[in-house]
């Protein structure tokens, strides 16, 4: 019997695994709770960064390697969306592309931060700081790649006409809201301190928290949806 949901659950596991990698390796081991303040002068920044260079290197390598999981996670979500799409596959395609491009935003900034750790002990402090800043500008201001994924996902699931939708409507709205909230990151390059800076209350603590909640919540409903869709597929009369 054809199983249209083969491999989908495997791909769906990418979400929780990447969330774990992001929290443990990127955030904790990588010394990103919060990141170093943009307000530090180069010498002070360099001293602090050098002290933790090895730990940061390990955290960033793990995130670089794990980044691809955002893409594979997106593929799983696309399969759920395809079960709902009626007119065409535009929304699931947008979601897949958004997730795939976001995977690069895990890989590239973390590659820049890994490079910063490579010769941290001997590098000029201004160059060290510039590499760190470079990673953060790309990491934060590339948000619209992820907004597309989140809005496409949300719009698709809002259109679910099941009396018990695969994804509850509040999750669809939450996804859209998170994607739009990211627009605050446009202010990040203007501020070296305060709530809109890269380590600030709004542009770090709130924005990153809601992103991780998004990954957790959507992962959960992806799994429950796969189970329901598999059951629906089995219950459907098969061609002779």
């Amino acid at each position: 019997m054809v199983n249209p949901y083969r491999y989908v659950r495997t791909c769906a596991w990418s979400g929780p695994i990447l969330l774990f990698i992001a929290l443990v390796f990127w955030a904790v081991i990588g010394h990103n709770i919060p990141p170093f303040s943009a307000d530090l002068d180069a010498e002070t920044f360099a001293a602090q960064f050098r002290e933790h260079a090895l730990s940061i290197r390990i955290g960033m390598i793990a995130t670089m390697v794990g980044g691809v999981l955002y893409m594979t996670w997106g593929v799983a979500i696309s399969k759920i969306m395809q079960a709902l799409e009626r007119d065409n596959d535009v929304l699931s395609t947008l979601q897949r592309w958004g997730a795939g491009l976001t995977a690069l935003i895990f890989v590239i900034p973390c590659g820049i931060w890994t490079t910063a750790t490579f010769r941290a002990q001997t590098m000029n402090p201004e160059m060290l700081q510039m590499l760190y800043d470079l990673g953060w500008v790309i990491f934060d201001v590339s948000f619209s790649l992820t907004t597309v994924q989140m809005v496409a996902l949300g719009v698709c699931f809002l259109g679910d006409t099941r009396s018990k939708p695969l994804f509850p409507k509040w999750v669809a709205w939450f996804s859209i809201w998170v994607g739009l909230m990211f627009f605050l990151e446009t202010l990040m390059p203007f501020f070296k301190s305060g709530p809109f800076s890269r380590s600030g209350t709004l542009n770090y603590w709130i924005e990153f928290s809601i992103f991780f909640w998004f990954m957790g919540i959507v992962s959960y409903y992806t799994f429950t949806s796969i189970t329901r869709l598999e059951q629906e597929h089995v219950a459907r009369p098969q061609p002779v």
Partner: protein
Amino acid sequence: MSPGRSPSDLAVDRAVPVSATPSIWAFIAADCFSFAIFFAVFMSERLGKASLFDESARRLDARLGLLNTLILICSSGLVAAGVAAAQKGDLSEARRWLWRGVIVGGGFGVVKIVEYSSKVLHGLTPLTNDFFMFYYALTGVHFLHYLIGLAVLFVLIRKTRSATIADSNTLLWINSGGIYWHMVDLLWVFLFPMLYLLGGR
């Protein structure tokens, strides 16, 4: 829509009951939560710099802020009348009220542009000081919400044109769009006193 349900047609239910609470409330709740955080951050940053914030607030024109408050409240009322007309099944009446809401609401954008330009011409930008950083960021984010709200109202007007009867889907859109527009109004009702009146003359 076929009357019978085959066993494999698992609970697909096209009709959304009119009495169902529009799910947009989840978005409204999240958005109000984020603005509550913005307000909290503003108030906490203000604690250490109250005189700077007060002196900066006095450079805002509270009359323009008040005018904008009245514009949005009035526009909200007009849109509410449009939603009520739609619920009674009169889509052309609804359309007329929605247009009135758009025209009055459009005034907010005009006032805001006048206000921003005059501030910038006087050398007051988001980088001037912390108060103005918040002023531009908070009113800017609100302005984005406002622009999205205007776009939503235009979509609602289109829907009243293309729908021949007020079906449950059209009503859901109109109800939800109205709720969103009221939120835009509500957020400004909090922003206005916080930015313009607190510490102002």
